[in-house]
């Protein structure tokens, strides 16, 4: 653990990323205290530019506070991204584990399925899914999970295929452990580091995907996420630049930080790879 922290801290970008993510999560948690009013509530005149009349980031077309929208949006955006990533990890790891461990027909079918998902335009698929199943938190989470599990399943499958022939796994088999137990207690713990790395990258792309869906008007109609605010700003781009600039910066900073954390985790968890990359 000490070694890991030491290796992680050598990656300056990763440390900066952790600081930004803590700040964003803090903003999300403290949204109620900083902005006691609801983000949908009208607090001032419409189209107030930033830094006027105690609206730090300006107001929107109806006079709602953009700052409050971003703080409450952080909550929803992070929550949606985290839940959809969790669902997708659960599914991707299970499918990858079963396919890599058992091989044979099951494996062939899974590989075919993964290839199918990697060929079709996934963003289009997410749009079609949400639109036809009617937009809501659940359908958005479902759609993001559906399009993001295949690369992870492929990764886990490869890990399982190489680990299942190692001595410690064969020893466990000879000892008479059940397949489920071998998968869960022998192989899975040893294949977690790539899963952790992709986890942070998956949260980043889930945020991008969610914001794109909300931007198109496919988010939950009652959820003020960052993408929703940008989508609402599109028609008044000329009159209210602040409506689109600030939520976009929030997305950019959060996604960038998660990507940097992913890189740092990768360097810390796969020291061999890290050395290769810097030479």
């Amino acid at each position, binding site marked *: 653990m000490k070694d890991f922290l030491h290796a992680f801290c050598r990656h300056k970008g990763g440390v900066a990323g952790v600081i930004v993510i803590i700040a964003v999560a803090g903003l999300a948690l403290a949204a109620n205290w900083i902005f006691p009013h609801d983000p949908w509530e009208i607090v001032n005149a419409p189209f107030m530019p930033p830094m006027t009349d105690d609206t730090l980031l300006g107001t929107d077309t109806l006079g709602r506070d953009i700052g409050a929208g971003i703080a409450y949006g952080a909550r929803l955006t992070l929550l949606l991204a985290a839940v959809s990533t969790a669902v997708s990890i659960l599914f991707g790891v299970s499918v990858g584990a079963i396919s890599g461990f058992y091989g044979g027909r099951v494996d062939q079918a899974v590989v075919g399925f993964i290839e199918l998902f990697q060929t079709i*335009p*996934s*963003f*289009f698929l997410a749009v079609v899914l949400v639109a036809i199943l009617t937009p809501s938190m659940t359908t958005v989470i479902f759609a993001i999970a559906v399009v993001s599990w295949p690369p992870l399943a492929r990764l886990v499958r490869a890990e399982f295929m190489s680990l299942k022939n190692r001595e410690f796994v064969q020893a466990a088999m000879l000892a008479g452990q059940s397949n489920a137990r071998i998968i869960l207690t022998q192989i899975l713990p040893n294949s977690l580091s790539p899963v952790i790395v992709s986890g942070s990258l998956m949260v980043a792309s889930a945020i991008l995907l969610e914001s794109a869906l909300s931007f198109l008007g*496919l988010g939950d109609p009652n959820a003020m996420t960052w*993408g929703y605010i940008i989508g609402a700003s*599109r028609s008044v781009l000329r009159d209210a*630049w602040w409506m689109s600039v600030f939520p*976009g910066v929030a997305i950019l900073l959060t*996604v960038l930080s998660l990507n940097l954390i992913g890189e740092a985790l990768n360097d810390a968890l796969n020291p061999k790879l890290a050395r290769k990359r810097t030479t």
Partner: protein
Amino acid sequence: MKKIGKFLASRLFKSVLVLLMIALFNFFLVRAAPGDPAEILAGQSGAVDAEFIAKLRTEFGLDRPMIVQLGQYLKNVATFDLGYSYRQQAPVTSLIAEHLPATLLLTITAFIFAVAAGVSLGTQAALRVGKWGDTVITTFSMLAYATPLFWVGLMLVLLFSVKLEWLPAFGYQTVGAQFTGLAHVMDVARHLLLPALTLGMFYMAVYARLTRASILEVSQLDFVKTARAKGLSERTVITRHVLRNALLPVITYAGIQAGGLIGGSLLVETVFAWPGIGRLAFDALLQRDYSVLLGVFFIASLIVVIVNLVTDILYTVVDPRIELK
């Protein structure tokens, strides 16, 4: 020769299988959605017209068993009959055919920009690894990689159309202007610049990172050491020996990227009101005109499948080491 034939046949079979899966997906999605399939396909506006709904019912055999419906649907799709848009009063296939050229122009331009800019930036970064220039390029591509596509578009509009007033903010050509010949081409090019830049930016970042990593990896190989030992200049070593081999993963990525570009065009065309199939899909979304939306999804997948098939074949031509499977 026989090997190539077998390879082509197996790839072709796979492609048809993918398209069949998408058709099945469309079919079952509409039936899994809450509500009457005929009304879903007709969209909100069509639901008023009982006669149209009845026509849809007979056309899709919605009053008959599921298996008959499926057979009818697959037959329709196989003959490129993707349904009828009540809202636009036109067959979906002809609507798509009308909007497809604009999307192809946009995506191909964005692709060329992404590859050209990405590969040269990546090469420059690799040549200066660890130095100031490398840091600038790497930081820039990290930023471009983390920025939402649609937001890049809005920011470019704010800067180049609203603030500087250099370029038009939306559309395919100047409305009302009857340009011909070169003036028309220039007009479309001016409109194309911002959307293509927006769509290409993310992939440019991907290509820059990919090229940089790939060059650094190939530079460690023995044949490059030999080339250096012969006393060739660093630039010759990079362009003649390294780059040729380093660009292979870039080609593979081009196939994977096709789906992303088509998906991205949905966002970019929405931001810039670019009259392609992405914009068509977005309008269909607003009007709940789902036969158009599903039709665009099918055709977009068809294009991606074709691009993948072509890159697979190209790949074996470029790199003879690849075994034909």
